[in-house]
């Protein structure tokens, strides 16, 4: 292949490539925007979590109090 033909082909690739990339990612923009419409926000879940955590994580409240006070102590001393 001589260089002019190669350059033509490269130019063609450039055009086709950029079109494809924009088509693909543009389609994704639409898809994601559509998805957002049909997906409810997580707000209830976020509200549930603080209540649910203690059962999962089982941090003894006494211990938390102790540590909180320790950290407080440390801060005051600083």
């Amino acid at each position, binding site marked *: 292949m001589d260089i002019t033909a190669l350059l033509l082909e490269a130019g063609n690739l450039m055009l086709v*490539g950029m079109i494809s990339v924009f088509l693909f*990612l543009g389609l994704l923009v639409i898809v994601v925007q559509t998805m957002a419409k049909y997906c409810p926000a997580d707000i209830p879940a976020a509200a549930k979590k603080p209540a649910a955590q203690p059962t999962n994580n089982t941090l003894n409240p006494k211990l938390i109090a102790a540590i909180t006070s320790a950290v407080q102590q440390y801060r005051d001393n600083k």
Partner: protein
Amino acid sequence: MEGLLTLWHDTGIYHFEWKQLVMMAVGAVLLYLAIVRKFEPLLLLPIGFGAILANIPNAGLNDEGGLLYYVYHIGIDSGVFPLLIFMGVGAMTDFGALIANPKMLFLGAAAQFGIFATLFGAIALNVIPGFEFTLQDASAIAIIGGADGPTAIFLASKLAPHLLGAIAVAAYSYMALVPLIQPPIMKALTTKEERAIKMEQLRPVSKREKILFPLLVLGACIMLLPAATPLVGMFCLGNLMRESGVVDRLSHAAQSEIINAVTIFLGLAVGSKLSAEYFLTLETLGILVLGAVAFAIGTGSGVIMAKIMSRMSGGKINPLLGAAGVSAVPMAARVVNKVGLEANPQNFLLMHAMGPNVAGVLGSAVAAGVLLALVG
């Protein structure tokens, strides 16, 4: 005492050729960049070490039956290692910022112009005597502009294995140089007022959206660009494992044990391609120049796209974000943040820049798919 003579005839000193010494110096420079300059050390340290090992005369690490031979053929020739890395990167990536503001995908698309313009440039270089890049070579070189290591290695292993070493080294080096390469271009293309634009806070993204996102990306890829599905598919698998929340063991394995082990071997295997024969050529010089050009053009086209979108949105988009579209996660996003802060000390762009940043990863995987489909 003929044994001592035999040993002497086996020594490296006796066998050295200057080219091997030069390549070992190249390896040493990569180690220096990795350890002292902290340039992408996770990759450049094993690559540099692999380059040294590969060029030892009479050690045969690169010959059939040698360690580097196995690592290269099992891991890179097959395409497996870059795909595993991509799975791990997917498991480490949070698409929240991009889902909250999907228009950022256009910035990830625009920045890929760096790839395709460089492809043209590489072919144009053929007018200079000594350069004879085929379309395959040019495509593999151009992908450096995607600023994504595993994508570059994957494409180069398919299209131009003889250039793999130089391409991988250029890709990772320039990714590490993002904080030097990008700011002047970003500043040249924007005004101080533009750089000072503050952006609205991103909406919170629901768990369901995050789970669906990798599946939708995979769906689009299946429909439009099957050639990109190995890369995009493994990336989406990693991300789905992360976001689904039901396979934390596997997600952890992908982003920790698997990716760490693979990174060592991938680096050694890339290093094994840094042999004098393939590296000490005029092409390598061309690759280094073209890689820098690709990064610069990608940054520029991203910023220009962001300027256009900024105008169209009535000034709600900071054009600096466009620079993050080249990927180089998370370096490019940090650079955007830094340049933004210089213009306005209250302007924190990091979270907003993560959107185009991860879009750039998808963009360059798509570009790789296009190149595979058309010249592969």
